[in-house]
């Protein structure tokens, strides 16, 4: 059984005003336990709406969200329980920090969840801080004294500390320098490997998605355009650029090589794969097809 499933999910913003806008127009997706899903799409394609529907921050106009086979809106009073199971990290999450110390801020989520035992709380907070690579001594500082990247990681830890079964991150690397990006991506990857949680990563960066995702969900104008394995999605460079998206740079190179007549697999999206494919091709296996100009 799928962990999260949506059935004909529809959402409309500003219903009944002149600003009415359909943000999601019947989405059907199904995500299994432990999967790493990349979510891509243009600004305004419905990505953010979709993730907010998944944790019950928005209530669908029609359609259902199933978590573990049960409709999350069956008991509207208990929607808070869904939010502990589906953790959502918003864009620029550092703006949500408010406590006196980083420790207290990370403890906000687990406390709301009802963890009262001091040791249990301490364990979850320290574990979350460790996942995002925050040093012990930072925990007693004010969150407003941290650097930009540290703030971001502290905020992510605040959601991880709730130990959700599904972790959704909306552009966690936006506005960070390359080193900060790599760091956060690696930590998310490690987190998922160690805990076996399901992760959804919303991103504009195809390189980020290519590095971490098993499957990719492509959104376009409120519809699910494609939902397939990362290799299959990036093979369709043409289709992606039609809806204003790109494939990773390395995939672009291989798609172009293929167009020029090289007998080479175009479903390549990481450097390691590229190296292997290029070596294989150069060793003569694909040479018969004619030289590449």
């Amino acid at each position, binding site marked *: 059984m799928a962990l999260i499933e949506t059935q004909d999910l529809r959402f409309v913003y*500003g219903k*009944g*005003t*002149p600003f009415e806008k359909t943000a999601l127009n019947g989405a059907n997706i199904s995500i299994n336990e432990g999967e790493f899903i990349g979510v891509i799409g243009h600004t305004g394609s419905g990505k953010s709406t979709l993730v*907010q529907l998944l*944790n019950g*921050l928005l209530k669908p106009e029609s359609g259902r969200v199933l978590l573990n086979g049960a409709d999350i809106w069956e008991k509207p009073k208990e929607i*808070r329980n869904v*939010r*502990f199971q589906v*953790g*959502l*990290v*918003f864009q620029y*999450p550092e*703006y*949500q*920090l*408010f406590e006196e110390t980083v420790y207290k801020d990370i403890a*906000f*989520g687990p406390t*709301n*969840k009802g963890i009262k035992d001091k040791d249990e709380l301490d364990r979850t907070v320290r574990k979350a801080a460790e996942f995002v690579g925050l040093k012990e001594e930072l925990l007693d500082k004010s969150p*407003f004294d941290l650097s930009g990247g540290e703030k971001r990681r502290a905020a992510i830890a*605040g*959601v991880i500390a*709730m130990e959700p079964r599904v972790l959704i991150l909306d552009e966690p690397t936006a506005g960070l320098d390359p080193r900060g990006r790599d760091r956060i991506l690696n930590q998310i990857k490690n987190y998922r490997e160690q805990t076996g949680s399901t992760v959804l990563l919303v991103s504009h960066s195809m390189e980020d998605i290519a590095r971490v995702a098993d499957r990719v969900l492509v959104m376009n104008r409120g519809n699910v355009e494609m939902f397939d394995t990362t290799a299959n999605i990036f093979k369709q460079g043409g289709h992606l650029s039609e809806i204003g998206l790109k494939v990773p740079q390395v995939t672009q190179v291989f798609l172009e090589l293929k167009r020029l007549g090289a007998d080479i697999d175009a479903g390549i999206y990481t450097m390691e794969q590229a190296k292997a494919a290029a070596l294989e091709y150069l060793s003569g296996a694909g040479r018969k097809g004619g030289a590449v100009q």
Partner: protein
Amino acid sequence: MISDITIGQFMPGRSFIHRMDPRMKIITMAALIIFVFLARNMLSMGLMLGFTFISMLITRISPKMYFKGLKAIWFLIIFTSVLNMLYIGGDTVVFKWWIFTITAEGLWQSAFIAMRLVLIIIISSMLTYTTSPTDLTAAIERLLAPLNWIKIPVHELAMMMTIALRFIPTLLEETEKIMDAQKARGADMENGGVMKRAKALIPIVIPLLISSFRRAFDLATAMDCRCYTSGSGRTRLNVLRYRFRDAVAFVTTAAVCTGIIYLNMLSPSLVQ
């Protein structure tokens, strides 16, 4: 929800009223509000109601939006009407029970008060619905320009108003974002007693304050970078000009106001 507050919300459009000069809108609508109080019998009140209704249709904004604006003050309207109904004495008693006496005079009085309140809200909503905040403050600045003579810094006040108005939607959006982010961390804002609810506001108010300061500093730096200086000598990108349609609006409003005074004389007044 926060987004349900409609007073002061601008609804873009291309109607006659949308395209009027904002100064003329303020002048005519202020005149209309004054004359709402001068209409003293059913004939003049009828003219006022009719004219407001037609203006509402001209704006092409759904009447629903106007009634949404009224929602907030329904209680006030009913409360003052009932109070007036009971307190205004008169000779023609319609209904008497225990210490409550309702007279025809009292009924008219309360009906007029209700109609006046509704009209005022509709007319002022019409001004804000059809005028962008920037136009509105530009118009206020121009209309108040004579106050410069008594050393009131009209431009600075208008600038402050423009900035404040400009940031209302931004702050509302920001508030909703922060609320969502804290809700995603399990913050509970709907349940609990007064103390618990007040405490639940802290995770929202603190980030909001911090980001407001950040925005204020950013804006001040940006203004500095463009060498902003206030006071005289500033020119505008869009200079306000009265056009033919403003003359039409002025003449029509003047006619309606004259009509109200004339109709007041035709039949006896129903309010004190």
